[in-house]
């Protein structure tokens, strides 16, 4: 929970800190992030470690996250951002963090459950986790099928809630994007008119 809160804060910070900031390397920070991962804490979100170049006025998208497989986005804050634009950006940021939390926990619990299942099955067979060569012993797909079925049914309700929420958010974001695009076009038309007038 604390780690999730920290990630949320870091995610929200990312949108503000990097607006117009200089390119920053965080070598030590990167190392600390790695160490944090090793110690079992959720490392600082990648988005907070990356700063886009100052001249850029677009969003930046990063490599897939190790845990959630989702690509983080660092949002650009334009100088003349409207309230609608800010609402969109903040909503996108919040959705990104929410998505990240869901999929990270989902993948982690899947991996854990899989390992526990393999361990219990191997134990029942009387085998060790690693064979003579030190390689991890894996079960066949047919043996794993029980686990996959079980995992899917256990997480069904969670997925249903996630799906509903995701569809709602996706539609809202796209609708807001449309509104912002329309607003920008309208403004540009308005400026052109005043230019022509002058």
């Amino acid at each position, binding site marked *: 929970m604390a780690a999730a809160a920290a990630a949320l804060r870091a995610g929200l910070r990312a949108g503000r800190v990097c607006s117009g900031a200089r390119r920053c390397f965080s070598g030590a920070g990167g190392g600390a992030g790695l160490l944090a991962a090793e110690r079992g804490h959720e490392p600082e979100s990648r988005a907070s470690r990356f700063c886009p170049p100052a001249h850029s006025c677009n969003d930046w998208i990063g490599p897939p996250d190790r845990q959630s497989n989702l690509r983080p986005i660092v949002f650009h804050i334009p100088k003349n951002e409207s309230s609608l634009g800010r609402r969109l950006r903040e909503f996108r940021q919040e959705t990104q963090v929410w998505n990240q939390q869901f999929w990270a926990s989902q993948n982690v619990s*899947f991996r854990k459950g899989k390992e526990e299942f393999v361990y219990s099955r191997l134990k029942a067979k009387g085998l060790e986790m690693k064979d003579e060569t030190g390689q991890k012993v894996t079960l066949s*797909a047919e043996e794993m099928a029980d686990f996959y079925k079980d995992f899917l049914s256990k997480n069904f309700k969670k997925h*249903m809630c996630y799906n509903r929420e995701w569809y709602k958010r996706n539609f809202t974001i796209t609708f807001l994007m449309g509104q912002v695009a329309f607003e920008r076009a309208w403004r540009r038309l308005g400026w052109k008119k005043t230019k022509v007038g002058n």
Partner: protein
Amino acid sequence: MSAARRCGPPRALTGLFVWHLPKPAVRQMPCKFMHCCGVANKRWITFQHLNFLKRMYVTQYNKDLSQQAKPKSDPVAPPFLEKKHLGQEKTVLREIRPVSPLHPPLSETPNRNEFKAVNSAAIVEDLATAVGAESKEEKQWKEMKLQLDDLPGILARLSKIKLTALVVSTASAGFAMAPVPFDLTCFLLTSIGTGLASCAANSVNQFFEVPFDSNMNRTKNRPLVRGQISPLLAVSFAASCAVPGIALLTLGVNPLTGALGAFNIFLYTCCYTPMKRMSIVNTWVGAVVGAIPPIMGWTAATGSLDAGALLLGGILYSWQFPHFNALSWGLREDYSRGGYCMMSVTHPVMCRRVALRHCLALIGLSTMAPILDVTTWNFPLISLPINLYISYLGFRFYRDADRSSSRKLFFCSLWHLPMLLLLMLTCKKSLIEKEDKSELLS
């Protein structure tokens, strides 16, 4: 809308959801049917190897379709440090040796200095490694700016252009099988309209499934997942394909075809896509989605929903099951983790039974073709070998329930459908024959 089913996210519209059809196999399908299976296999592996370099998260076991995702492990610092540490020591030692004979009393201090040098060198190396990793990661960040040069490629991937091509080809087969004189203009309008509708449906599907696609290896390089295009643009593209596509079909061909096209888009985007995560019934819905394109082709030519149209649709519908069920057998892990409700995960026995049942149904449907005056009696005879073969593989899949039998059935289905449609075309009941018959009767 799809003809064959591909790996990866659960099926798209019935019929031509070719998830995993390699490019060479698609090109070769009309020509080398007999070799297609083997070629597809080899090309499949080569295609995978090429993609391996691009993908960070795929662990590709030998001859394994499942593409189990394995997160990239962190570069473990200590062993790496040790290597560098030893390397530094060795190089420093080599330098010191020639000096020591000249200054024997001072032999201790060079060693201590050497040790300090090695330590600081190691620290510098550590930082350099971390900075190197950071800069490598920095390079992976991309600006989300739409490059107009890349736009055609991006839109092609967004609309699943290969799948769309297969959908259009099944619609063309439906058009060609219709018992009316061939009208080129109508044929072209139908093909373009169906293609646009399919592009729209596929784009909307990708728009809905961004986080799920990110988590499955097969689909994680899609444009929306990679941020190459914004969701707004994707939706706009879908709308700008759907509206002209359906309008073309309704006004340029006939309203029935237009209605079928619109219905198919709705079925695929609003029924099949959300249902994939809710219930296993999605497979049957998807099968209907794939069956509709050939029906559209037929209605475009004749203007009415005949028994022949339904037969063609029935053949595509039945074909979906051995194709998709065999494919999904190797993707159970990804489906389970991603929360997809597929028969192969929840009801494995039913999955195999349904596949076998529909393989056998193909034999029955092929026999119905001459009865409905769609083809001559040659068709059930010459299609019997391939239908029996796919049924045999379906039976093996049902009995063995393992990776090799599922792969065999899947690859067979890839060449089986085009072969069946081709045989059907060659055995089409000629119009002259029909006219003679009606003359004789009157």
